[in-house]
């Protein structure tokens, strides 16, 4: 096991600058999730850690050793690919033992390791099958088994669940998490699914256009997003952003959202008089109240646990998730009161969080 450090990483494909000065520190034993929209460079970054992609600038170290110029096999890492990349001509057993076989480990040890991995993953009945004779979930497990037998310093996962159906995805998510708790191997996990990131990660790194937007624990990103991008990306349904102007009135600062709606500054934020801002509220942080935003309900979607209201306010869409609102109908006019302790304020121009 080992800590992984990336510093000042840059990567270009021809003229396109794909990774732009990324620094990430991953502590020993941590489960770190790289998340971001498609094309932001997550896979590229992971492949650079694996040694499959050359590093243009910067340094990657694994367990204290700089590995820039080492081929993959000298980095002591294992990787699970999105399409699994199982060897189609080898049985499950052969797939899992291939690396150990190449490393010329004794037969008995290889057998023991394969047995251990197969036990952990429930693959024992399938050891003599070929990949084409397995279901998607089983293939996925073989891909992980191939990684586990190596007992590497670092696990790398590139969207390993994206080819599975929704139910299996949730199940495998838990399995991978349990596996990590058991083995405590440093892991880097790439996904574009923020739910996956939130549920699995010790640490999330949000990437956009090859730049780290924010990194931290899941709850930190949820409750203190550094900018509108992270705020909008983390959490589902997404945060509402309402443009407004900060105004000093009677000694306190208020956010004027137009239409006579004026809200107090969210807790812990700060703005200058006249500053253009975005007022951010997550749907689950609205309540029905007396003062707040007067909106018109457009669509009502009960999910059982709560009810999602799609509303219009001053030409914007506002989404609210309310606990007990069985009586709401579309066309109703209601007042949504944001919880100002859990609301967020961002600078409209830069999108950065405004902190007191």
């Amino acid at each position, binding site marked *: 096991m080992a800590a992984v450090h990336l510093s000042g990483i840059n990567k270009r494909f021809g003229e396109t600058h794909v990774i732009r000065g990324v620094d990430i520190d991953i502590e020993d034993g941590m489960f770190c999730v790289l998340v971001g929209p498609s094309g932001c460079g997550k896979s590229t970054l992971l492949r650079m850690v*694996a040694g*499959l992609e050359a590093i243009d600038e910067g340094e990657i170290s694994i367990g204290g050793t700089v590995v820039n110029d080492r081929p993959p096999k000298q980095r002591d890492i294992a*990787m699970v690919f999105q*399409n699994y*990349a*199982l*060897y189609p001509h080898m049985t499950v057993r052969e797939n899992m033992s*291939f*690396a150990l076989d*190449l490393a010329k480990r004794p037969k008995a040890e290889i057998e023991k390791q394969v047995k251990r991995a197969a036990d952990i993953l429930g693959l024992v009945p399938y050891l003599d099958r070929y990949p084409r004779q397995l279901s998607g979930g089983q293939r996925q497990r073989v891909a992980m088994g191939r990684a586990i037998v190596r007992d590497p310093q670092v696990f790398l996962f590139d969207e390993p669940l994206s080819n599975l159906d929704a139910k299996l995805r949730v199940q495998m998510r838990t399995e991978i998490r349990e596996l990590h708790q058991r083995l405590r191997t440093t892991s880097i996990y790439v996904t574009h699914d923020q739910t996956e990131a939130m549920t699995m990660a010790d640490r999330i790194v949000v990437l956009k256009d090859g730049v780290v937007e924010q990194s931290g624990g899941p709850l930190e990103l949820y409750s203190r997003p550094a900018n509108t991008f992270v705020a909008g990306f983390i959490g589902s349904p997404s945060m509402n952003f309402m443009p407004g102007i900060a105004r000093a009135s009677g000694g306190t600062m208020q956010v004027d959202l137009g239409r006579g709606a004026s809200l107090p500054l969210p807790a812990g934020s700060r703005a200058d008089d006249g500053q253009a801002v975005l007022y951010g509220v997550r749907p689950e942080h609205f309540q029905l109240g007396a003062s707040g935003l007067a909106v018109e309900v457009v669509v009502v979607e009960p999910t059982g646990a709560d009810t999602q209201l799609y509303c219009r306010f001053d030409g914007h869409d506002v989404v609210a998730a309310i606990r007990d609102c069985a009586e709401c109908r579309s066309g109703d006019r209601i007042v949504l009161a944001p919880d100002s302790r859990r609301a967020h304020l961002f600078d409209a121009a830069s999108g950065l969080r405004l902190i007191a």
Partner: protein
Amino acid sequence: MNAGRFRTSQILLFVALAAFTAAMLTPVVWALMTSVKQPIDAFAIPPKIVFEPTFEFHRQVWLEKGFGRFLLNSAVISLATVVVSVSIGTMAAYALSRMSGKAVGGIMLALLSLRMFPHMLLAIPFFILAKYLNLIDTYPAMVLALVAINQPFTIWMMHSFFVDVPKEIDEAAAIDGAGEWQTFFRVVLPIVRPGLWVTALFSLLLAYNEFLFALVLTGPHTKTLPVAIAEYGGEDLNYWSLSAAAAIAIMIPIVLFMMALQKHLVRGLALGAVK
């Protein structure tokens, strides 16, 4: 369109196409019949469809007229060509399928046009060089020539199989600790093994059928079947029946080949224009 009319038009279409096929096969059938006819039947007018078959000429061709030797030459030369050409061509195709950049595309297109260039232009220098090196009428000269004209095909064909193997497989192998050669021999090559057989069989066909180089480079000791049958002259009274017997026999392995490869004919012959 109603079902009955559809049936009728389908049957008419089938009859027309079957008639075309029959016409196309007539020369083959005619030769086949000639090879098992007594000369008196072979020269009959009108042509005889019903006759007492004889396999006397098939026996004579192989046992008395020396075609056994020519078959051996053909087999040795074709097999040697396939072994050399496919093994080195497969390695090259793998490298090309894993390289990137403009040069690779250029090489592939150059191979495509090399496959088409006039063999006569190569036959002349080959003949002169073989003469200088005293290689006329030896196996190596013929094998080298066939390897040369086979390479572009082998590489192009194997390349089309290698590009179907996802790059991630190589990467998984690299992470598992395999070097280039291990990745090639233990991972990628076994995956394309069916393609390897297809390529080898097509190369075998190319070598087995080749005529021009065999005509120029072989002699009494190394003469292959196509040259032998083309040269087989009228010194014999039963020449017609004998050469028909030989021609039919030469064709038989090819029929087997066609059965084995029916699914791959397009891929092997159309150079990737259609897949």
